[in-house]
């Protein structure tokens, strides 16, 4: 139980969350972080080479 509490203390969950306000847009930093990570994953999936792709093309 104490180990769990120690790890949980890294991210203070008992305080209010941080929010970003821009005109009528309001979003929590946590949600914005997830959206940014999804965009990064999407772009990385398009540009990063897939292992074995060149070998498969040669065999075609």
């Amino acid at each position, binding site marked *: 139980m104490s180990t*769990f509490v120690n790890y949980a203390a890294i991210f203070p969950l008992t305080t209010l969350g941080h929010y970003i306000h821009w005109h009528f847009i309001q979003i929590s930093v946590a949600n914005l972080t997830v959206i940014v*990570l999804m965009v990064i994953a999407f772009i990385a*999936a*398009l540009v990063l080479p897939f292992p074995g792709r060149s070998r*498969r093309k040669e065999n075609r």
Partner: protein
Amino acid sequence: MSYSEIERQWTTRLRRRFVRLLPPEKLLPDNQPTYVSSWIYVFGVTTLSALMVVIASGCVLAIRGPQWWHTSSVGHFVNSLHLWSVEIFFFAMVVHLWGKYFMAAWRGGRSMTWMTGVVTFLVSIATAFTGYVSQTNFDSQWIATQAKDGINATGAGAYFNVLNMGQMLMWHIVLLPLVAVLLTALHVLLVRVKGVVPPFEEHAKVNA
């Protein structure tokens, strides 16, 4: 039983129809077209893998119950595993959705594959929502009281009461997962029937 009688049986006809629609080599293929070797095609199967962990960890939570997941270290771990597998499930599903949207994955008679994916996404959101209001903690009480006015404004509150903990738990662990898993199975079978959507430049060659 004569040959013609066997031919007329509904089981024979149904089996032949299934095999014609989805022969074993299409149901469990041993290779894929070259264009599938891209990271963007990985997110569909990542979503499926995350869904398996969600179901498995949810089964453990259902066996042991709220007292266990609120008070014991292992319970906390499985509870967190359930939450984070849901996070990965939605993360991968959204990237999968973006990829398929920009590929126009409904091409080549794949509209039903696209639509089953859309409905599965919506059902998954409802499943996650009922999960958040079934946590049995202050967070779930807060979410339920905040959501009730929105749900009531749609007129659905008479049948779907977010303040009814028992009803929300049943929707979360029985009805919605059943629909989500059945739709996911149908979605995957449709992918197998129609094949993975080719890139635009390959579309003409594949359909030629």
